[in-house]
């Protein structure tokens, strides 16, 4: 079930009403658990079994970890969790990719092998909930957290529908304690939660799907050759689309959880105002960045074993982070580019350790960061390297047979939305949405809320899935 659908509106209204009934806390948690399974199975019922497997394996693995005395036994329980989760992820997400690469490898060696088409359906959100459940077992293994006291709280942590299919990737320590005490949203929470849901829907339905996605499609899904203007505008459109889509989802998820009385962490902090790439990753998909830092970068050595190991850990983390996004080498290239950017930035920071940029220099560095991020988006959006090169050559102005692909209206719409987006990110760079809203006049807030709600309905979104569902 996607948030931007009539089905979800009906579902959420029912869940909210039931959650507000004066029932025992355990019963209300059971209701939320059932609702979450319904939410997931409304997409493809059989795949709820995978969710159960992931839940049960990690529950028993964590229980085993607590009881195990010997390090070997503890490691075995931890590996059970990692193998079960990565095994599922590997089969469903990377099965076809691995087979295609194996076939290509054999072909390069002169061996002709026609593999049967695997036709594996990717279960929605598998990348998110496997990471969430693994973090539970890994935290217990690393003695960062105690296991949940009861299975219901733990199962609800894994399955809680606001974050289930596309994050924010929650840690057990963030959510399980919230299930231990009765919670019901106060009026202020409920209304502010609804406001956040509206902001998220506006981002997704109006900006991402309504205005920006069609422009990106005209450049990336076409077989025609774009010139510099079209290639840049198509890529800028995608930069806006991916942000509005994913940040929109996260904002709705936070709003939904808030309406039910729960708190979820920010997943985005105005990333297009980032100065440098370490700053960018502190602002973009924050819960994934911190997950990769805690469970991949640091175990790979982090920055504790000298520069070489640090750069290797950075590159390894970003390459795997890229692959996490999708079973395609273009995603690996995207992650690799970010790894290179982070490494170069790290080197520059050491080389020019005493440099303190003024405001204008910060602005220039910020714009350079944004431009370089856009170049990585080409690999993220293009379905093949050949199309990525066509767009990149277009951005460099070196496409010989370029034709205009975007009409004036598309160019203007992208220019207006992206300028507005980037300027907003810069204005909000060191602020939070809440702090700005707290100082805004009520009339302005009402009018803005109404315009957003009207635009959402008048745009008539067709229930497009969020981009990150495929990951």
């Amino acid at each position, binding site marked *: 079930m996607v948030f931007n659908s009539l089905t979800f509106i009906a579902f959420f209204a029912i869940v909210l009403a039931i959650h507000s009934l004066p029932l025992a806390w355990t019963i209300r948690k059971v209701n939320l658990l059932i609702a979450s399974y319904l939410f997931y199975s409304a997409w*493809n019922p059989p795949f709820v079994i995978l969710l159960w497997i992931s839940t049960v394996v990690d529950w028993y693995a964590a229980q085993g970890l607590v009881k195990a005395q010997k390090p070997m036994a503890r490691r075995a329980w931890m590996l059970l969790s990692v193998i079960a989760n990565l095994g599922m992820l590997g089969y469903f997400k990377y099965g076809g990719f691995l087979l295609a690469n194996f076939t290509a490898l054999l072909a390069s060696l002169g061996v002709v092998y026609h593999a049967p088409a695997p036709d594996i359906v990717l279960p929605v959100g598998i990348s998110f909930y496997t990471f969430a459940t693994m973090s539970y077992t890994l935290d217990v293994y690393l003695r960062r957290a105690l296991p949940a006291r009861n299975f219901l709280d733990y199962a609800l942590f894994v399955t809680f529908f606001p974050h289930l299919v596309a994050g924010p990737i929650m840690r057990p320590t963030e959510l399980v304690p919230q299930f231990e005490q009765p919670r019901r949203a106060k009026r202020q929470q409920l209304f502010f939660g609804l406001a956040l849901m509206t902001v998220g829907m506006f981002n997704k339905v109006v900006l991402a799907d309504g205005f920006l996605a069609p422009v990106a499609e005209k450049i990336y899904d076409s077989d025609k050759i774009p010139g510099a203007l079209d290639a840049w505008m198509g890529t800028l459109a995608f930069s806006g689309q991916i942000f509005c889509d994913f940040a929109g989802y996260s904002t709705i998820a936070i709003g939904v959880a808030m309406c039910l009385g729960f708190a979820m962490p920010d997943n985005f902090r105005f990333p297009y105002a980032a100065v440098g790439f370490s700053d960018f990753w502190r602002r973009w998909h924050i819960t994934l960045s911190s997950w990769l830092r805690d469970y991949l970068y640091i175990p790979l050595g982090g920055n504790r074993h000298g520069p070489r190991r640090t750069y290797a850990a950075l590159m390894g983390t970003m390459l795997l982070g890229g692959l996490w996004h999708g079973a395609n080498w273009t995603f690996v290239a995207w992650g690799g580019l970010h790894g290179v950017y982070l490494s170069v930035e790290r080197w520059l920071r050491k080389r020019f350790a005493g440099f303190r940029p003024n405001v204008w220099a910060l602005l220039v560095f910020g714009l350079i960061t944004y431009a370089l991020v856009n170049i990585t988006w080409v690999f993220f959006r293009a379905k093949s390297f050949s199309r990525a090169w066509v767009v990149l050559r277009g951005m460099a102005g070196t496409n010989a047979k370029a034709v205009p692909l975007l009409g004036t209206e598309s160019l203007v719409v992208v220019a207006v939305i992206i300028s507005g987006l980037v300027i907003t990110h810069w204005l909000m760079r060191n602020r939070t949405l809440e702090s700005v809203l707290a100082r805004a006049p009520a009339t302005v807030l*009402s009018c803005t809320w109404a315009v957003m709600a009207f635009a959402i309905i008048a745009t008539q979104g067709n229930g497009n899935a969020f981009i990150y569902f495929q990951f």
Partner: protein
Amino acid sequence: MAQPVPERDIPDLRWGAILFAALIMTLLMLGAWEWHWRAYGVEPSIANSDALWATQRRRIDNGEGDGATVIVGSSRLLFDLQLPVWQKLSGQRSIQLALEGTSPMFALEDLADDPNFRNGRLLVDVAPELFFSGFALRQGVLKYTRKQSPSQRIGQWLSMHFVEPYLAFDDPDYALPTVLARQEWWPARPGMHSPMPVRKLMVVMDEDRASHIWDKLEKDPAYAKLAQGIWAQHLAPSPDDPSPAQLQKTIDEQIARAAAAVAKLRKRNVQVIFVRTPSTGAYLVWEDKVFPRAKTWDVLLAKTGAPGVHFQDYPELQGFWLPEWSHLAERDAVRFTQALYAIIERDIEHRAPASIARTRSPQGE
């Protein structure tokens, strides 16, 4: 470090009052938006969505495929064949699977491979531009149908019962980005060939996709002229047009695909009837020039061995009003349906299939 329980600030404002005011303003804006489109002539109707098509396609899977009359094609048979009239004549509610801007080939092949469809009749709309080019604007509908989730089915049901029958603006033609993009103030970009997209032409009246032309095309000459102008742009030569040899290859491929599908359907006792629906004006002139009957329609019937009804062959299929050259006015669609039914019953149902079309010469003998 374990992540702590997150804390979220709630701005200290009168959120109840803010929400209430926002709600009132939203309703006012929506009311004005609805009023604007109703004043333009739009009435609420069922959305011609992929989900609606899926409900009709599933009728075959759910037991109605044995002995059913199914319609595949493009917008012409979708608008022109009036399901209630056909039902009155045949006693059977047909399954309407025609899709605008879409060759029926994918649906024809899908039905040919579906054992649930047997002992029935299949009317295949032949709009030359689409049928013989294979262009399929909405081919994705089949994939959608096969992968439709329970959530999408529920959403379709909710929309069809609680939204679509009440809101005129709930139509893709009047979505905010579409309305903005179609404003006349945008200057044309030099060197860019971008014909105007097709405007709203139809109204879906019922859950079973019973449709007809939008009456604005009949009542508003300026709108009909706009629609004709859009067709004229689409019919004008374009650098993207295939060469004559490429086009002929495509035509041959489409006919071969149709012949293979018809052969499969015949084995399951499904009678396939091709219908060349009426067109007129510049559209017909263009069709005759680019897709001449001798190289398309006649070859199709010969290769498939299936009967066909070409509107030019029957006096009772003449004299219709097509406000924008391609689709019948609603009243004439009723007469067309009655005449088509009578022709099929008289000339095809009781005669050897392959001989029918060949016994006719253009313009009704």
